[in-house]
Every structure is written in structure tokens, then in C-alpha cells.
């Protein structure tokens, strides 16, 4: 009896064990993949690894654009149990009262959309509230938001759309570099969805950080001054570019009107989003005479002293067209080529351009980089316009010689003026200084004009900011030599087919003259009246920007200037080495400074900061004067022969740094 029972028990245990083993084998071997997959579905979570968009810095490492992680609330409208309840619930939790969420949800539901973003960039508190809701049809997504903390250089930076994809400016131009690719990681979780272990399935690729050549301090000053001047002159828009002529680095690229890049665009054709510095070409006017004269110095026998017949302000062109200069600049008779630039004589420029010839003029306009893209990575750049040579009319050469019938951008002007500033090399503008820590190499410059020509042009352009020049006194800088060219171009009314009395007032300049550190080009569009000319409208902006730039860049002064009173009081007798330094300094234009110096000569009760006392040369021979001056380390400019009769500055006055003594001799 007992044995039978034992046998039954053993058999039962054996069957039970077999059943267990069979089940185990089924779970572990036969259906292993299936159950493993189900287990993974429960335990493993695919989590995105955010890859932030590349930060954009200015040249000093200040962030101009950066992305921050944020969260958005999304729903699947087709799976909402009740649209009304859902809308009310979401409006309450997300503080969206009166936002018309119900209508939007219904619209999305009617269209069959399976994805609807209820609210972007929610606060952490709102995210917490949404997660606490006992519903499964609301999702909180981790996203990223672009910020522009400085709110400057909007046209350079551009902006991004809702998906953080660049839609303008460098954000669009270098989208491939800037945008990051999010990775994925598998997260093993417990029953409470706490992470136990994780491993990357796809590695994230963060966007490349960019360092621009822009200087935020200068950019701010330029935008401020430009905006103030546009408003003050009643202009419609304006632009300014500051460029390092040696490297091509763009320190400032400002355009007005501007916008806040943090705000989404209101419309596709928002005028504030037009980049006037690179995207809109205009007739440059007299600024273009720099190109005309450069070509003349290169290709003809004309020199700065060559005399040009300006026809007393009237010039008859082929086809019966008559150029009247009297209205704008006054009628000039015969001017030297230097004075043609100084007084901005249109007829003089036409005469010079005629000597240059069509082919040479066309070649040099092209060689200076006009009618070509500069290659700056900002979308929508205009290459300007210049007719092909075969389409030039009989008057095209005359028009182009004085800056008409050709259109350029402010950036192209800066590039061209840099040729003169750096000794004759065309340097491509550079906007990106570093890409992910690696410096972007400079493009090899191209020789456009000879260094001698560039130097001569600098001297000619210096006269423009001297007394009598069209840029005086607005473009004159305290303590620094400067050179430039004004430009005032009448705006052509395409509707009325005639030129209006609204102007594009421009000023293109460089400073300091001996070794220019910066080239500044300012253009105001739509100015009017006498105060709308380039010298009156744009030159003051050049003055403000250049002064600030020189101070920020710590460029040593190359001209004497008036010292503040506190320093005057502390000044003692100048040392000998200071005297020598004053003599060695690069002086301003001597002939022009004679007038200026007389005007700004120290008054009897004024004491200059630095410089020796001017000796009395009256009655001395030229040899004695030169010996005396050499012994004191002074520079004398003798004029005439015989004994010294007149000297300027007068005896006893304090000679400012870099100032020279002009002595006239007579028998």
C-alpha cells in the first residue's frame, strides 16, 4: 500500500517537474526572443540625447546666439477623448486662457493631424503640473530654444524657425555647421521608471560653435549711432561696415532698421529684416571716384598734380546730355586731380574717367571686387550691378566715373576701400573667425593696384577730411589722422523714370592714415536736402564709429590733440625725448593744416600737453634755421630763400606732437 502511494507521488512529482521544465524550455528557448522583446519594451526606454545647436560668439568670446533646453507640451488631437475637456484642462494647467485652444485642437483634429504642439517653452512648474495629470494623451517633449542675449547684429545672425533651423543670416548660411544631430540612448528602467543602466545607441553630434569676427562693442556703437543718424536725417534706412583692411575681418556689419532676433518674423517681407549692408545695392555716387582715380593713377600718366579742366561746372556729353555741377558742388574751373577728389568734382571725375578709357575702367571696377559676390556666408547677398562692357552706352563711362550707372553694396565698398588702405591688395571679407576652435584661414589676397598708387590715394583721400574737403569737419578725428571720401547719389525713381532729390549719402574712410587699422563705410539711404549729403549725413557716423573703434582697439594716436584740463595742470616741462617723439610722429597734411592749425592754435593762456617751445627763427638763414631745428629735434618746412621772415606757429608757442614748423624765407 505504502509503496503504491510512493510510486504515485513520484510519478506526480515527475510529471510536475516535466511540466515545469517544459514551460521553462518554452519560455527560455522556444519563445525567448518574443518574451525578451516584450520585456525590453517594458523595461527599456529610448531616450533622445540632445545635441544643442552651435553657439555663436563674437571675436572676444561673448555669446551672440546660444541654445537652451526647454520643454513643449504636445498632444495627438485624434486620440483626445473629449476636445472640450482637453482644451479646458490644458488652458488651465498651461495658463492659456483665451488662447482659442479648442478651435485649434478642433481644426487639427478635423485635418487628421496626429501631432499638435500645445505650448512651447513651458516653465518647469508647468511641466510638473502637466506630468501630474492622470491622463496619457499629453506628452511633454524636451526641445531646444535659441536665444540672442545681446540683441545686436540681428542681420548678421539672422534667426531660426520653430524647429530651430536657420531661416536668415549666418544661422541659415552655415546651417549645416550649426545644427546638431540628437543621439539616442537605451535606458533600462525599473518598475518605477527609474534608470538602472543606459547605453548610447546613436551618438549625438552637437553643432559646431562659431566665432565671428564681429566685435559686439563696436557693433553696438555702430547700430546706436546709425539708428540715431537715420532718424535725425529722416532717412529710410542705413548701413555701416567696419573692416580690418589687412585681414578682411568684418568688425561691424550693421543695418537699420533692425529687429530683435529673439522675436519670430511678423511677415515674410518685413523691411526691418532686409540686410542693407550686404543685400541691397545702391548707386555709390562720388565714393566711386576713388576707383576712377586709382585706375587713372595706374593706367594713365595722370598724377595728383595733373590739372583737370572742370569746365566751370558744365560739361557736354555725347548725345546732348549736359552735366551741371554748379548745383551740387559749385562750378570749378581747373583743378588738380587731387582737388578733383577733395572737392568731389563730377566733371573732373568724368574727365579723368575719359582718359582712363572704357576697358580700363571696367577692368578696375571688377578688380576692386564690384559686381561680384564677396563670399560672405550670409544668404541673400547682392553682387551689385555693372553692365558688361559691350552694353555700355556712350555715356556709361562718364556715369560710372562719378559713381552712377553702377550699384554696389556697403560691404563691397568696404572691400574696395580696404584695397587702398592695405597697400593695394584685395582681401576677401571674413565673417567667421573660428569654426569649432579652428581658425578659418585667410584667403590669399590679390594685387589690384600698386602700393605707390594706394599710398597716393590715401594722401588724396586725406584731403577730403581736411579743411575745404567735402568730409570736413564731420569726418575729422581727434588724435588720429583719417582719410575718406564722401558720396551723395540721387535716388532714381523707377516709377517716374527720373532722379529724385532723395539721396544715398555715404562716407567711406580709413584711419589712422599711416597704417590703417580700420576701414569704415557708412551709408544712409533716403536722405534729403543739403544735410542729406554724404559729408553731412554719413560722415558723423563714421566719426563716432571710428573714434570708438580706435579707443577699443587701443590704436596709438598719431596726431596731437587737446588734453583735458586735469592733465594740463599736471603737465610739466616736456622732456627731450618727448620732443624727439613729436618730431618723429607722422604729421597731417601740411598745407591743409596751416589753416587748421591757425584756427586751433593754442591761445596765450592755454598750455599744450606735450611738445617743445617753438624757437624764434626770424632773421636767420635757412642753414641756421635747419641747424637750430635739428638740434632741438624739430622738423622745419622751409619755403623760399633768403632769411626767415614768417614762421608758423609763432615763436614761443608750444609745438604739438607731430606738428611741424613752416618757415617762409625772403630776401
Amino acid at each position, binding site marked *: 500500500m505504502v509503496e503504491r502511494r510512493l510510486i504515485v507521488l513520484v510519478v506526480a512529482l515527475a510529471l510536475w517537474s516535466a511540466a515545469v521544465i517544459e514551460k521553462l524550455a518554452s519560455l527560455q528557448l522556444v519563445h525567448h526572443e518574443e518574451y525578451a522583446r516584450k520585456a525590453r519594451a517594458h523595461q527599456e526606454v529610448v531616450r533622445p540625447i540632445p545635441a544643442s545647436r552651435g553657439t555663436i560668439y563674437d571675436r572676444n568670446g561673448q555669446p551672440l546666439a546660444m541654445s537652451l533646453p526647454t520643454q513643449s507640451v504636445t498632444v495627438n488631437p485624434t486620440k483626445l477623448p473629449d476636445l472640450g475637456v482637453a482644451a479646458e484642462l490644458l488652458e488651465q494647467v498651461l495658463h492659456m486662457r483665451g488662447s482659442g485652444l479648442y478651435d485649434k485642437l478642433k481644426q487639427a483634429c478635423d485635418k487628421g493631424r496626429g501631432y499638435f504642439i500645445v505650448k512651447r517653452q513651458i516653465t518647469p512648474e508647468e511641466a510638473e503640473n502637466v506630468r501630474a495629470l492622470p491622463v496619457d494623451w499629453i506628452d511633454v517633449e524636451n526641445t531646444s530654444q535659441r536665444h540672442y542675449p545681446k540683441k545686436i547684429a540681428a542681420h548678421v545672425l539672422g534667426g531660426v524657425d520653430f524647429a530651430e533651423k536657420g531661416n536668415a543670416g549666418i544661422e541659415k548660411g552655415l546651417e549645416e555647421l550649426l545644427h546638431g544631430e540628437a543621439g539616442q540612448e537605451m535606458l533600462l528602467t525599473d518598475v518605477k521608471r527609474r534608470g*538602472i543602466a543606459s547605453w548610447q545607441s546613436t551618438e549625438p553630434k552637437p553643432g559646431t560653435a562659431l566665432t565671428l569676427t564681429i566685435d559686439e562693442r563696436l*557693433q553696438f556703437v555702430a547700430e546706436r549711432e546709425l539708428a540715431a543718424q537715420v532718424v535725425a536725417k529722416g532717412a529710410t534706412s542705413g548701413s555701416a561696415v567696419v573692416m580690418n583692411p589687412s585681414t578682411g575681418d568684418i568688425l561691424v556689419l550693421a543695418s537699420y532698421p533692425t529687429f530683435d532676433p529673439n522675436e519670430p518674423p511678423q511677415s515674410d517681407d518685413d523691411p526691418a529684416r532686409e540686410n542693407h549692408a550686404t543685400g541691397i545695392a545702391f548707386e555709390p555716387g562720388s565714393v566711386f571716384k576713388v576707383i576712377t582715380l586709382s585706375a587713372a593713377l595706374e593706367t594713365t600718366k595722370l598724377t595728383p598734380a595733373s590739372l583737370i579742366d572742370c569746365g566751370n561746372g558744365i560739361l557736354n556729353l555725347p548725345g546732348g546730355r549736359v552735366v551741371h555741377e554748379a548745383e551740387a558742388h559749385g562750378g570749378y574751373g581747373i583743378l588738380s586731380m587731387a582737388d578733383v577728389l577733395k572737392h568731389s568734382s563730377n566733371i573732373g571725375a568724368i574727365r579723368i574717367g575719359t582718359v582712363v578709357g572704357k576697358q580700363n575702367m571696367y577692368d578696375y571696377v571688377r578688380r576692386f571686387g564690384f559686381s561680384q559676390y564677396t563670399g560672405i556666408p550670409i544668404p541673400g547677398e547682392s553682387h551689385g550691378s555693372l553692365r558688361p562692357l559691350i552694353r555700355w552706352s556712350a555715356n556709361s563711362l562718364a556715369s560710372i566715373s562719378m559713381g552712377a550707372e553702377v550699384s554696389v553694396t556697403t560691404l563691397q565698398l568696404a572691400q574696395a576701400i580696404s584695397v587702398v588702405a592695405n597697400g593695394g591688395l584685395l582681401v576677401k571679407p571674413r565673417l567667421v573667425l573660428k569654426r569649432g576652435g579652428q581658425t578659418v584661414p585667410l584667403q590669399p589676397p590679390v594685387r589690384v593696384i600698386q602700393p605707390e598708387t594706394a599710398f597716393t590715394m590715401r594722401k588724396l583721400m586725406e584731403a577730403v577730411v581736411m579743411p575745404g574737403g567735402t568730409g570736413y569737419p564731420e569726418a575729422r578725428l581727434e588724435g588720429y589722422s583719417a582719410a575718406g571720401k564722401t558720396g551723395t547719389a540721387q535716388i532714381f525713381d523707377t516709377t517716374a523714370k527720373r532722379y529724385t532729390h532723395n539721396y544715398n549719402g555715404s562716407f567711406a574712410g580709413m584711419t589712422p592714415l599711416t597704417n590703417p587699422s580700420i576701414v569704415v563705410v557708412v551709408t544712409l539711404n533716403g536722405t534729403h536736402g543739403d544735410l542729406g549729403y554724404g559729408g553731412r549725413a554719413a560722415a558723423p557716423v563714421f566719426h563716432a564709429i571710428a573714434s570708438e573703434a580706435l*579707443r577699443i582697439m587701443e590704436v596709438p*594716436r598719431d596726431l596731437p590733440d587737446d588734453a*583735458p584740463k586735469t592733465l594740463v*595742470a*599736471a603737465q*610739466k616741462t616736456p622732456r627731450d625725448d618727448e620732443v624727439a617723439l613729436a618730431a618723429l610722429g607722422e604729421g597731417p597734411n601740411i598745407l591743409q593744416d596751416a589753416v587748421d592749425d591757425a584756427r586751433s592754435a593754442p591761445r596765450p593762456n592755454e598750455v599744450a600737453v*606735450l611738445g617743445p617751445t617753438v624757437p624764434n627763427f626770424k632773421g636767420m638763414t635757412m642753414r641756421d634755421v635747419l641747424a637750430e631745428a635739428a638740434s632741438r629735434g624739430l622738423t622745419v618746412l622751409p619755403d623760399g630763400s633768403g632769411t626767415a621772415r614768417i614762421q608758423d606757429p609763432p615763436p614761443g608757442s608750444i609745438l604739438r606732437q607731430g606738428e611741424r614748423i613752416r618757415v617762409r624765407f625772403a630776401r
Partner: protein
Amino acid sequence: MATLPAFLRWMEATRPEASVKQAQPRAMRDPYRLRALPQDNVFFYCKKIDNSRLVREPDPQAKSACWSAIGVASLAVAILAGVLVPGAASTISGYRLESLRAEERRLVDERRSLDLQEAELLSPERLDKLAHNQNLVTPKSNQVFHLDGGQSDTAAVAMVKK
């Protein structure tokens, strides 16, 4: 072994008044009281056994077996621990690691947020407004002296001394 009714009755019998109660007529007895089982006194008999003189005989084999059992058990525990502890430690470390990763992400985000705040605070526009509020003006070029050991710093040094 005595039943519960027998035990209760025995308890009552030990009391002095029990005899008095037994003298009462049958009709006065508690009707709910359980009746005694037969042979209650036999089952309830307790035999006293004195084991004080009983001494356990030493058994060296048992001691050895005991130590062996302890050793085997310890080994089993050690093996079990060796097998299970790494997994448990790995799991605990995983929790800790994920917690630290989350903390790292949070700190990175916080740092970026602080970077943004710093950039906003250092924006030229804000600094310009602050400067204007404090009546600070941008120095002119002739008010700037570069103290680089050159000649032009004499006046600045004099100003500082003053």
C-alpha cells in the same frame, strides 16, 4: 492528556468552596458546563521525570560533522554572495550612475542657463544704460592714455599721483 473541561473541573476542585458547590442539588448545576470525559484523571496524569543526572556523551564525529556543515554552509553563502553581490552591486551602481548622469545633465543645462543670464547682463545695451544712469561717459581719445611704458603715459602717471 486531559481535555479542557476536565482541566477546568480540576481547577475548581482545588478550590475550598468546590466541595460546598458539589453538595448542591443536581438541578442547580450550570447547564452550560461541559461534562467530563471518561478517564479524565488518567489522561491528566503528569509523571515527573528527573533528568538531572543524565549527561550527554561526547561525540567527536558529531562535532566534526557540525563544523563541516558550518563550513559547507559558509562556502555556499560565499559562493552565493559571489554570484549575487556583483549583480546587486551593479544594479545599485546603475541606479547611482543614472542618478549622477541626470544630475550632470541638469547641471549642464543650468550652466548654460547661467551663461545666458551672464551674457544678457553683459550686453552692451544694458551696460550703456547703467553707465548713463551713473553719469559715466565714454572717454574721448585724448583722455585715454595707454600705460605701456611709452612716452605718452607721463601725463597719466602725473594724474594718478595727483
